[in-house]
C-alpha cells in the first residue's frame, strides 16, 4: 500500500503500461509527472527529454512513437493550448500517444495552483478541423493509475492520441493506492505482416485501424499531416479527403462500446441525476448519499470517458428521471453535451463555479433539496 498523489499514480500507470518515451515542459500543476519520469524512466530503459516548449514536446512524442515507442507528454492550462497543433497531427497521422492535461484555472495564465475543469471543450475541439477524440477523466488517485494504463492501451489499439483529462485536485491529492504486480492486458499496436514493398501505411483492416510499421524497419513509408491516401502520400481528391475524415471518426464511433466507461450510484430509481466527473464527482457522490438519507431520490452519473460522450448510457437512465444537474468547475461545458443528448426528455440544470474553489457536497445537496 502506498500513499501517492494523482500525478505520481499517473507515472506509475504509464510505467506499468510500458512507457518508453516522455517529452515534456515544466508547468504547474503537472510538473511532478515530468520530475518523476526524469528519474524513473531511464532506469526502465526508457528516455526522458525536457524540450524547449510544449509544442516541441508534443512533436518529439509523435516522432518517438513513429519509431515504435510508447509515448506520453503531460501539461496543464496554457501548455495544453500549445499541444493542440501537433495533437491534430497525431490524430490525422494516426500516431499513438497519451497527452495528460492536469487542468488548472484559466483562461490564459489564470490560476496555476487552483483546480478547474475548464478544458473539457478544448479537449474535444481544441485542434482545428473535424476530428474524433478520446478523453478520460479520473476521479481518484487509484483511478488515475488505471486510466493512464487504459489511455495507453486505447491509444495503441486505435492508433490515436488519447487525452487523460485530470484536474488539479486529482493530480495533487494523496490517497492510498495498491499497485498490483499484474495490471492485466497491455495492448501493443498492430504491426504489418506482408512484404514491406506492398505496405500501405494507411490502409485500414476491417476494424478501421491500419497496421503500423515503425521507422527503421525497412518499410520506407511516408507520413504527412496533409490529407493522404492509403499510401500515405498527399492527395487533392475530395473523395479521399471525405473518406479519410469519415474513417477516422468511424474508427472511434464504431468502437464506442469498447471506449466508453461510466460509473453510476443509486441511478436505478433516481428522480434527479447528478452528472459529474473528475474530482467534482467525489463531492457529487457525497451529496447524493446525503440526499438519499434525507429521502431525496438522487443518483450519480459519472462519465469516466468524457469523449466520446457516454450518450447511450445517459439515455438509458432517463426513465423515471425528472431532472438532470451537471456539476462542473467551469461556467458550463459538459452541460452543453448533456443538454444536446437529453433535449426535450428531461430538464437540465447546472452547478458551476470557475473561481478556483471546489464544488462542495453542501452546494450540490442544497441544489438537490431545492429541486426535489
Amino acid at each position: 500500500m502506498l500513499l501517492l498523489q494523482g500525478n505520481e499514480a499517473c507515472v506509475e500507470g504509464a510505467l506499468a503500461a510500458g512507457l518508453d518515451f516522455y517529452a515534456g515542459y515544466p508547468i504547474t500543476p503537472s510538473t511532478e509527472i515530468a520530475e518523476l519520469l526524469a528519474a524513473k524512466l531511464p532506469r526502465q530503459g526508457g528516455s526522458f527529454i525536457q524540450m524547449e516548449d510544449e509544442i516541441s514536446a508534443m512533436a518529439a512524442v509523435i516522432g518517438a512513437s513513429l519509431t515504435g515507442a510508447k509515448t506520453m507528454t503531460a501539461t496543464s492550462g496554457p501548455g495544453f493550448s500549445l499541444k493542440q497543433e501537433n495533437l491534430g497531427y497525431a490524430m490525422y497521422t494516426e500516431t499513438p500517444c497519451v497527452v495528460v492535461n492536469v487542468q488548472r484555472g484559466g483562461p490564459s495564465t489564470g490560476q496555476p495552483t487552483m483546480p478547474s475543469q475548464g478544458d473539457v471543450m478544448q479537449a474535444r475541439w481544441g485542434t482545428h478541423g473535424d476530428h474524433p477524440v478520446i478523453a478520460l477523466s479520473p476521479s481518484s488517485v487509484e483511478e488515475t493509475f488505471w486510466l493512464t494504463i487504459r489511455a495507453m492501451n486505447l491509444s495503441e489499439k486505435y492508433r490515436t492520441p488519447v487525452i487523460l483529462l485530470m484536474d488539479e485536485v486529482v493530480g495533487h491529492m494523496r490517497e492510498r493506492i495498491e499497485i498490483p504486480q499484474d495490471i492485466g492486458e497491455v495492448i501493443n499496436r498492430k504491426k504489418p505482416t506482408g512484404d514491406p514493398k506492398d505496405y500501405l501505411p494507411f490502409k485500414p483492416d476491417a476494424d478501421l485501424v491500419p497496421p503500423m510499421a515503425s521507422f527503421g524497419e525497412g518499410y520506407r513509408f511516408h507520413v504527412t499531416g496533409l490529407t493522404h491516401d492509403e499510401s500515405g502520400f498527399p492527395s487533392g481528391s475530395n473523395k479521399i479527403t471525405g473518406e479519410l475524415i469519415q474513417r477516422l471518426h468511424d474508427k472511434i464511433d464504431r468502437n464506442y462500446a469498447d471506449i466508453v466507461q461510466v460509473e453510476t450510484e443509486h441511478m436505478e430509481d433516481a428522480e434527479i441525476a447528478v452528472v459529474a466527473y473528475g474530482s467534482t464527482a467525489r463531492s457529487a457522490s457525497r451529496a447524493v448519499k446525503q440526499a438519499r438519507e434525507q429521502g431525496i431520490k438522487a443518483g450519480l452519473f459519472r462519465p469516466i470517458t468524457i469523449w466520446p460522450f457516454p450518450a447511450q448510457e445517459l439515455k438509458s437512465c432517463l426513465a423515471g428521471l425528472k431532472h438532470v444537474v451537471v456539476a462542473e468547475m467551469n461556467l458550463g461545458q459538459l452541460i452543453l453535451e448533456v443538454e444536446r443528448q437529453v433535449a426535450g426528455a428531461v430538464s437540465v440544470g447546472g452547478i458551476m463555479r470557475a473561481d478556483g474553489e471546489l464544488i462542495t457536497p453542501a452546494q450540490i445537496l442544497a441544489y438537490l433539496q431545492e429541486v426535489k
Partner: protein
Amino acid sequence: MSGEDKYLRSNRLPHILCPGCGHGIVMGAVVRAIEKAGLDQNKTVIVSGIGCSSRLPGYMDFDTLHTTHGRALAFATGIKFAKPELNVIVVTGDGDALAIGGNHFIHSCRRNIDITTIVLNNRIYGMTSGQFSPMTPQGHLATTAPFGNVDRDFDICELSKAAGATYVARSTAYHVAQLTDLVSKAIMNKGFSVVEAVSQCPTYYGRRNKMGSAVDMMNDQKASGVTAAAAAKLTPEQMVGKYVIGELHKAEAPEYTARYHSIVDSLKDKEMK
C-alpha cells in the same frame, strides 16, 4: 544504380516545384551525399516541416516525415532520441527553420543532437507565394513588404555556430558538387550539423526583385558565394551582398543521445554496486 535512382521515389515524380526552382538541385545533392556517406537506406529518416523545401522528403525513398510548420527538428529530436541508431536528416526552409521554427533550431544546436539539418534558403516564403522571411535582405520586396523589407536578415551559419552546432557549412544550388561534399561531411559529423543551401526562387522572389531568370539567379550564386580565402582578400564594402561558402565551423562536443545513455549506463553500474 546511381544515387538518384536508388534514393528517389521515381513514381512520385515530377515534383510540384516551379520551373527554375533550385530545390530539386539541392535534393539531388542530398541523396548523392547520403550515398557518399554510405548510410543504410532502411535506417535513415528524412524529416521536414512546411513549405516548398519541406515537400522534398515525399520524393526521397526513405522513411519520411512531413510534419507541421517549423517543428521538423522537434519531431526529428523525438525520432533520434527514441532510436539513436537511425540516421536523421532534416530538410527545411528559411522561414520554416528560422521564423516559426527558430526556437527549435537554436535548441537543437544547443543540445548537439546527432541530426543533420539542410536549410534551403531561397530568402522567401514560396509556398504562400512570396512573403518576406527572416532571410529576406533588408530593402528587398515581398508581398508583405511592398515598400521594401524593414526587417534585418539572419546569418544562419553564425547563428548555428553561436547556438552550439558542431558542424556548419554553406553552399549554393550553383556549387552543387561542393554542396554534396559538405552535406556528406555534415552527415558524418556525430552531432548537430547545419548546411545552409542557398537556392533560387525565380517565381516569387527573383521576379519581384528583378533578379532575372533562374539562370541569372544561379549566376548570382556563382558570383556571391566566395571561399573564405577569397573573402579574406576583400574589404567589408566589397563583401556586401556576398557570403562565404564552404566549411565554416567544426567543433568537438558531447553528442546528446550518447551523453544521455552514458549517464543512464553509469547509473545502472552504480546501482548494481
